[in-house]
């Protein structure tokens, strides 16, 4: 029996090989990249994942784990001649223990589902990528996904307490446990963010938090992006720690208005600030915030007086990506990070690059943590325009590193940004990553060709 026959024997009826069946798996949300895998397998239990990984190891066939394929950096792009492990069918919440404040889930569980199931106990799962209604926890773990609340609550790594992992050689290990504190090296913390290069997560233990008692959500309009950015600095300087601070520029505001009619004022910069916590504390903080926003020269200030008004303020922000997508046939999203105090400088430079390249760039970003989300608009049908968009996106990445930040705050390196890794990391850093990869995956099968730039191999 050959590889495919053995695979089919392992997962009868759940190995896809026909062209039409493979098509949906050829790319992720970074649609500019496409590759046809040898096969797609649909495991339903972790024993099947283990079996498939062992088989791949025996035959030396590369594999890519896949959740919902919403990666924006080509993380779940197939490897030619390799297989895709599509984990969506492994979508059971195995245990939800309110007393322990944990949920134990399979990797194909969708992010938002955890909060939904935890809601009756007054609990929720904090990391909230905008893709949370569709993206899976396996994907979130691999990418250390973020969201709008990272400054205060951290990213996925901070909410994963334990993992069961199949290593690329087919060994099964438990990393971490159920407690917020562990002993020994934080191996589960290390696994989160390694983008599937060190194995497949088959079980994930998540930390749940009590849902905040009160929210205070404010929308403030500014005559410039810089003014909105200065307001954020002022908030930080006054010692407030809002749950979220988001900024949108004019292009994104217009797009969001067209798409969902959120009722946003058409200005150059919009700031959303959300305070959250016990009602007495939020009330006190709200007074401080009000004074700050007055002082910051806001043109208008809108405070949500009800949950419906709060949702209305968030609606446009949450729809921003897809709304901007409607303005243009294609777009690339970057998510570089800059130190918060350099936000103004970064935005000015992005505007300059946008003019220089003759491509529109919309900006929606997590202002509290300096995580930019420039959307580079282009038309893939025009010859050369994708290349131009990629070059512009690359300039933005280099800019972020130059200002002391990072290539990515939450979307990962994938295939898209691996060429820029040497901008941020020295050869010794990349070699150390390479050595860890080689020790755990001597045949280089797990998500081959991602994250680590080719130069490091040399």
């Amino acid at each position, binding site marked *: 029996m050959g590889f495919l026959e053995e695979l089919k024997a392992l997962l009868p009826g759940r190995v896809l090989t026909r062209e039409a069946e493979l098509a949906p798996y050829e790319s992720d949300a970074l649609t500019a990249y496409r590759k046809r895998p040898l096969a797609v397998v649909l495991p339903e239990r972790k024993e099947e994942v283990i079996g498939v990984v062992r088989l791949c190891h025996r035959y030396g066939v590369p594999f890519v784990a896949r959740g919902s394929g919403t990666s924006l950096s080509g993380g779940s792009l197939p490897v030619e001649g390799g297989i895709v492990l599509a984990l969506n069918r492994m979508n059971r919440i195995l245990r939800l223990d309110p007393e322990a404040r944990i949920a134990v889930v399979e990797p194909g569980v969708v992010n938002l589902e955890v909060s939904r199931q935890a809601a009756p106990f007054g609990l929720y799962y904090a990391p909230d990528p905008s893709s949370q209604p569709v993206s899976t926890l396996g994907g979130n773990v691999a990418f250390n996904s973020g969201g709008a609340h*990272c400054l205060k609550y951290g990213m996925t790594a901070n909410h994963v307490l334990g993992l069961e992992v199949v290593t690329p050689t087919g060994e099964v290990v438990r*990393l971490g446990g159920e*407690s*917020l504190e562990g*002993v020994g*090296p934080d191996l589960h913390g290390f696994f989160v963010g390694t983008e599937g290069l060190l194995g497949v997560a088959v079980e994930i233990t998540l930390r749940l938090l009590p849902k905040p*008692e009160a929210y205070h959500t404010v929308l403030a309009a500014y005559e410039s992006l810089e003014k909105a950015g200065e307001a954020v600095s002022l908030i930080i300087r006054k010692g407030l720690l809002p749950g979220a601070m988001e900024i949108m520029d004019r292009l994104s505001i217009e797009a969001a208005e067209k798409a969902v009619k959120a009722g946003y004022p058409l200005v150059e910069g919009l700031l959303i600030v959300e305070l959250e916590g*016990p009602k*007495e504390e939020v009330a006190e903080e709200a007074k401080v915030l009000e004074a700050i926003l007055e002082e910051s020269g806001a043109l208008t200030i809108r405070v949500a007086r009800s949950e419906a008004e709060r949702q209305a303020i968030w609606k446009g922000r949450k729809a921003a990506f897809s709304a901007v997508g409607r303005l243009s046939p294609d777009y690339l999203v970057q998510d570089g990070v800059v130190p918060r105090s350099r936000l103004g400088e970064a935005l000015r430079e992005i505007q300059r690059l946008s003019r220089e390249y003759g491509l529109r760039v919309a900006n929606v970003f997590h202002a509290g943590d300096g995580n930019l989300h420039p959307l580079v608009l282009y038309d893939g049908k025009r010859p050369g325009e994708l290349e131009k968009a990629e070059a512009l996106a690359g300039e933005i990445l280099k800019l972020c590193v130059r200002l002391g930040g990072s290539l990515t705050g939450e979307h990962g390196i994938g295939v898209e940004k691996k060429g820029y890794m040497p901008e941020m990391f020295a050869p010794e850093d990349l070699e150390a990553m390479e050595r860890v990869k080689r020790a755990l995956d001597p045949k280089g099968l797990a998500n081959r060709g991602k*994250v680590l730039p080719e130069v490091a191999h040399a």
Partner: protein
Amino acid sequence: MPEARRLAEVVEAVRAYPRLRPKGGGTKPALSTPREGEVPLELGGLSGILEYHPEEFVLTALAGTPIAEVEEALKAHGQYLPFHPPLKGRGATLGGTVAAGLSGPLRHRYGGLRDFLLGVRFVDGEGRVVRGGGKVVKNAAGFPFHRLMVGALGSLGVLVELSFKVFPFPPSTKTLRVRLPGLEAALEALRRLRLLPLDLLALDLVPPATLEIRLGGFPQSVKARLERLQALLEGEKEVLEEDEAHWEAVRDLRFLEGSPIWAKIPAKPQRIPQLEALPLGPRRYLDGGEVLFAGMDGEGLLALRQAGLPHLVLKGAQDPLFPPPPEAFFAKVKEALDPSGRFPLG
């Protein structure tokens, strides 16, 4: 005894000695005392804050910097290390805290060390200098070596430079001490409090039946929340208006003084009855029962091992870590970063 005050000296020492044991402030002797054949590497001189931008919420310092020095700098800007590193008053350093993987009672509010470490620069077992993470509060680029160093006991590299996320310290605090009739009642109250959105700074259980609850925020709000909390709980109550000195003593683990063996034991409220049945000495559960710091003698330690409960001994034992890290993953990482086995956990 080799002593390193600069990066180049760390590299030199690593290359010169076949087996090394890094030492910071020496506050956790079970981890820093050299075993047979090991040479101690003194890192107390590798000290100083390198970068601190209050507005960025980021601080970078050399690994041998005393926690006390870092906190003093932060305090001048109304900020703190929210994971509340223990043993500050005894001279603990940043590096030793990270290597041991320790957080104090205030971790309850925003999270522990693993949630606040942003980046690292270390020297691996072959004398290579490696960076992981970054100096911004959000970052997902590359393998997160900084998280790997948390609790690694120096087994994968000598920490040289560390970057942390820091937060504003609340404008005021107060503490409520509640004495309940017995362990069962205390656990019941603890379980209830864990599910409520009270944003407590600390929630400790002092066996057999006392809860210590710290609140932080604007004075008006703290007052109102304290009243709400009192109404919520049965038992005999006492308010500590001035509570800073009390919590400093707790984080310095002063309650363990006099015990021959000190250990950190990961826990959960459900596990507390089992732990309470063991022959342990003075002790305190932090963070709503998520972790126990306990004093004990040899009998207590043996009981912990026999019960198969994971723990880390900070003082008073040769073999501090139980269980050893999972072989199938850890041994590979060790092979990649310390192939000659220069560092602990070889």
